[in-house]
Each structure stands twice: as structure tokens, then as C-alpha cells.
């Protein structure tokens, strides 16, 4: 029996990782530049849940060397062109809180397991802590700001987050001025250095295995910041009706610290700003155009004019808001789309936006390998021409329930049918 494409590719990863790295980097950049690469790139993005296939999640999330082992196991079993692992929870609020400490801010942008132990934050829940050992961490956010406190957020977002939000949302920061508070901040800073070292090591390991690192920084949609960390999404959605002016002023006030965080990594060569969206698909075009988009647009265009393209995760079905994307400068970045008709999305955005997406976790879990192969073949046939397309399953997670054979079928199909005609 002849070798599957995935096996040949993995062999090349082992034999000539340098060449593979170069090929992948070029493939990705071509797609981002809205051109047709030599082959449709495949992107895998995980927050670590898929590691449950082989490891106990409570161990992976709380032990950086286990995390590295898990990442190595995944990439050497299921190779891709672009691999992003963020095995840590949403914590952009911490990056804003420490925006003036550039050594720490980008590192605490994700809350890792050990950071959660140090802070005892209520935004996130973790396996082996608040959740069963086999479950992935979960971001639940919560309401830590009262509706009548918008004025303080508007006045000075960073101060307000430090003085009011962190003490409410993190048990170990609950008493500013106490020894416990000082110890917690010191421990968090040390942990940030530990994590940075671990990330550097993981990136070096990946590079040796044929996986190029992405030069990434981070930004956020201002209204999501309010929904995710301060008012809970439900609260934010009610506030835009009950206190529209204050919400607008607060989103305006948040642009500056968000950009400050994003630019910290610019001197290190960051080329892409990762921006996960949450409230986007929940808002009507009217509310989106008034409360969400103008502020996000300013973040994206400001980054773009400073040489940083945005890497936006459009959660849910972004179809009702697609036209707004065309207001951005051509080549502004990459849009990863979770739902909606990917063919229509590509058609609308072709020549303007690099479009990523195409297959859903439900399809990958439930379909046969043959059906996946056929689906991917047709998808590539329709979407590869014209360039600027990256195939990606889902948005930020690969479900461990997806059978190995199905993930292999996906990779095989991209390798088999993805080459430029």
C-alpha cells in the first residue's frame, strides 16, 4: 500500500525541518497577502482541549513542561501549516492592568493554570481546581462592575481596573495594601517570567520540528472588554440599551490602553495582532455599527498603520456584519470565521481580506473520513482560486472527540487536493 500524503509530509518534517518551516511561512504569508500559495494552508488552533486525547488536562495546564510534551505530541501526530496553541485562558484584562510594565503585560495576556492558582481569579475555572480533571479550562467572566460605575471606568480605565476590578475578581488581590496583595503581584510577575521562558522553549522546540512561530501581539474589541471582564456579556447587552452614552464613552476610553498593550511587542517584530471577538454575532447590525464596530475598527486601522495586521476570530455567524469589514484597508489582515457560508464570505471578501475557516467541529466529529475528504476537496476547489484562503476547523479549539482518523482525513485531503492548479 502506498504511503498517505500525511506520512510523507511527516517524514519531511523529520528529515528537513528547516525547509518545511520556510515553505510553511511562505505559504502563510502568500495567503495573507491575498495571493494563491503553492498549496492551501491548513491552520490548527487549540486552547489545549485536544490534548485530552493523550494527557490529563489538569496536568497539562498546570505544568509547562507537560504542556510542551502535549504540544509536541499534537503537532507530530497532526501536522499543519499554521499551528497556534494558547493553552491558557482569556486574560486581556491583566495585560491592560499591567500595560505600564511591558515585560509582563503581554505574558499575562493569557491566564495560565499557575497564574490562576496565584491570583485565584473568578473569571476562569480550571480542571483539578474548580472543574473535573479531564475538562478544559473555561472562561466564564462575570459581573465585577456595577452599572453605575461606568463613570470611573471612563475616567481612568487602568486605575479603575487596578483599584476596583482586580480586588473583586481575584481572591488573592482582594485587599489592596495587604501583604497578601503585594505577594500575589510579586508571584504573578515571577510566574510571567517562568511562562515566558516556557513559551520560548516551546517555540524553539516547534521550530526544530518544522513549525514556524507566528510573530504575534494582542488586542481586543473595546465592547468585548466590558462584556468579558467587567459586566458579563448579558450585562453589556443590557447596558447598551439602558446607558448607551456611558457605554460609548467607556469603549472610547478603552482604545488607548488596548493599543498600548498591542504595541508593546512591536519592537520584537510582532506582525499580527490576535483579536478574539465575542459579542459580534449577538448584536444586530444597528447595535454593532453603533457600539462595537467603530471602536474595533479604530483598533484595527491603528494597528495596520503601524505595520501590524490583525488576526481576528469572528465568533459565531458574522454574516450580518460582513460589509463593515470592507471599510478596512485592503490587506488589513486575517478573518477566521466560525459559522456562516464560507463560500459567500470568501466571495464577498476576496481580494480584500484573508479568509480562514471552512469546516466545523460537528462535521469533523460526526462524518466519516471519506465524507470529510470529499467535502474538503470541493471546498478547496471552490475557495482556493483567487487566493487569500486558509482552511481551518472551527475557531479556537479542536475537539478531542474528533476521531484521529477524521483529523488525518482532513490533513490528507488538504495535502492531496490543496496544491495550486
Amino acid at each position, binding site marked *: 500500500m502506498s504511503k498517505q500524503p500525511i506520512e510523507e509530509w511527516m517524514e519531511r518534517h523529520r528529515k528537513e525541518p528547516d525547509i518545511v518551516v520556510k515553505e510553511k511561512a511562505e505559504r502563510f504569508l502568500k495567503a495573507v497577502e491575498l495571493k494563491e500559495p503553492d498549496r492551501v494552508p491548513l491552520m490548527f488552533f487549540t486552547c489545549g482541549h485536544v490534548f485530552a486525547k493523550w494527557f490529563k488536562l489538569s496536568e497539562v495546564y498546570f505544568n509547562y513542561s507537560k504542556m510542551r510534551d502535549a504540544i509536541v505530541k499534537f503537532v507530530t501526530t497532526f501536522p499543519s501549516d499554521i499551528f497556534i496553541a494558547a493553552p491558557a485562558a482569556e486574560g486581556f484584562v491583566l495585560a491592560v492592568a499591567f500595560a505600564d510594565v511591558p515585560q509582563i503585560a503581554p505574558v499575562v495576556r493569557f491566564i495560565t493554570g499557575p497564574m490562576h492558582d496565584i491570583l485565584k481569579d473568578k473569571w476562569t475555572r480550571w480542571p483539578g481546581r474548580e472543574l473535573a480533571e479531564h475538562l478544559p479550562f473555561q472562561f466564564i467572566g462575570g459581573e465585577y462592575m456595577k452599572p453605575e460605575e461606568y463613570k470611573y471606568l471612563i475616567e481612568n480605565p487602568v486605575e479603575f481596573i487596578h483599584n476596583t476590578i482586580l480586588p473583586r475578581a481575584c481572591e488573592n488581590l482582594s485587599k489592596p495594601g495587604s501583604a497578601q496583595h503585594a505577594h500575589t503581584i510579586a508571584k504573578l510577575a515571577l510566574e510571567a517570567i517562568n511562562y515566558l521562558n516556557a513559551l520560548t522553549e516551546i517555540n524553539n522546540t516547534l521550530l526544530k520540528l518544522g513549525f514556524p512561530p507566528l510573530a504575534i501581539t494582542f488586542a481586543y474589541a473595546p465592547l468585548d472588554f466590558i462584556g468579558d471582564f467587567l459586566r458579563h456579556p448579558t450585562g453589556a447587552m443590557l447596558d447598551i440599551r439602558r446607558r448607551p452614552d456611558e457605554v460609548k464613552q467607556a469603549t472610547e476610553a478603552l482604545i488607548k490602553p488596548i493599543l498600548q498593550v498591542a504595541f508593546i511587542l512591536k519592537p520584537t517584530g510582532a506582525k499580527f495582532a490576535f483579536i478574539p471577538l465575542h459579542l459580534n454575532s449577538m448584536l444586530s447590525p444597528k447595535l454593532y455599527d453603533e457600539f462595537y464596530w467603530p471602536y474595533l475598527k479604530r483598533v484595527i486601522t491603528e494597528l495596520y498603520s503601524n505595520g501590524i495586521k490583525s488576526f481576528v476570530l469572528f465568533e459565531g455567524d458574522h454574516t450580518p456584519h460582513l460589509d463593515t469589514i470592507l471599510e478596512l484597508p485592503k490587506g488589513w489582515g486575517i478573518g477566521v470565521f466560525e459559522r456562516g457560508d464560507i463560500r459567500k464570505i470568501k466571495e464577498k471578501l476576496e481580494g480584500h481580506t484573508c479568509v480562514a475557516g471552512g469546516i*466545523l467541529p460537528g462535521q469533523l466529529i460526526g462524518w466519516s473520513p471519506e465524507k470529510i475528504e470529499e467535502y474538503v476537496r470541493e471546498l478547496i476547489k471552490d475557495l482556493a482560486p483567487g487566493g487569500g484562503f486558509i482552511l481551518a476547523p472551527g475557531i479556537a479549539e479542536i475537539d478531542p472527540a474528533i476521531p484521529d482518523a477524521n483529523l488525518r482525513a482532513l490533513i490528507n485531503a488538504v495535502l492531496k487536493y490543496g496544491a495550486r492548479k
Partner: protein
Amino acid sequence: MSLSEEMVRAIVELDESRAIEIAKKRLEAGEDPLKILDDLRRAAEIIGEKYERGEYFVSDLVMAGEILKGISEIVRPKLKELGVSRKVVGKLVIGTVEGDIHDIGKNIVVTMAEAAGFEVIDLGVDVPPQRFVEAIKQHNPDIVGMSGLLTLAIDSMKRTVDAIKEAGLRDKVKIIIGGGRVDQHACEYVGADAWTNDASQGIRIMLKWMEEKKR
């Protein structure tokens, strides 16, 4: 325009303060609280239709839910006082499945289902399969609703349906699954009777089931 029509309109237009003001006025005027609840059902139906047509979005449903809840809370003491209760169209046991602790979607369904006349038993979040089974035994519902945002929820839903089958209760209930990452493939995999990522469509499916059951 009657106060009843005005209230329905205020709810549909998501004018919270006006809707609540009219509800209070109607109760003060001694109107039958059951009629007010009936108007909530009508308003929820119209809002649901608007959602299905793509005119309304989740944030609109959240606001609508808040208004419906606000008015029911004003009406409830009055019902108690008068010793009357509303005719129940069906019984729904609902929960976010094991491993998932997200509840925005579930809460919308709970409010809309109550407005539609369902008796809702809300099991909360991170509900293990066995608790669904126990709740079915205890409450004898017509319908079981399973919600989940995370992709892992799909597998949890399957385990829950399997547990219901093992307990010999599968034929007793209709099962509907809902959530951001639920689709037809997930529905088939899970072994549910219907799926939706649209709360109002979910309510319509459930109402249709109740109609069919009556026949």
C-alpha cells in the same frame, strides 16, 4: 389602542420602562393577571418571529427576556393573591450539559419557554447525565432541553442521551439540543430529536411537539 396592545408593542420594541409601566397600570386597574401573562406569550412570539427573520439578534432577545421576566415578577404575587394559576402547555426540563458552565443561551430559552406557557425545570449548568435522568423520573417532563456553548458539550449531550436511553426513558421524552456549536451533524451524533441555535425556533419546535402530543 388598548393597554394590552400597547404593552405588547412596548415589549416588542424593547421599550423596557414603558412596558413595565403599562403592566403595573393594568394590575392596578384590577385586570386579570392571566391576561397579562397571555400578552407576554404573544409578545414573545412576535419577538421570536423577528429573530427568525434576522431582524432581531441575541442582544435583543436578552433585552426582551429581561422585560418578560420583569413583568412576570410583578404579575406573580397577584396570581398568588388571587389563587389562580396559568394553564401549562407542557413541561420542560433544561440544563447546560456536563463540563460546560455557559448559560446565556439557556437562560434566554428558559424565559421564552416560560412566556410561551411551559413549566420549566431549570437544572442549571454543568449538569451530569445522571441528574437529567433523575429529573426526568422526578418531574416527568414532555421535553428535555440540553444546552452548551463549548464543542465538548456535543459529546456531553451524547452521553446524556445515552444515559436517558439506558434508563429506559428515551421514549417518554422529546429531546432538543441547542447552542452555538450545535448543528444537524451534532444532532444526529447525539441522537436528539431536534437541534437549534435559535431560541425562538426552539420554542416553536417544542410547541409543535406539544400539539402533536395532544392529538
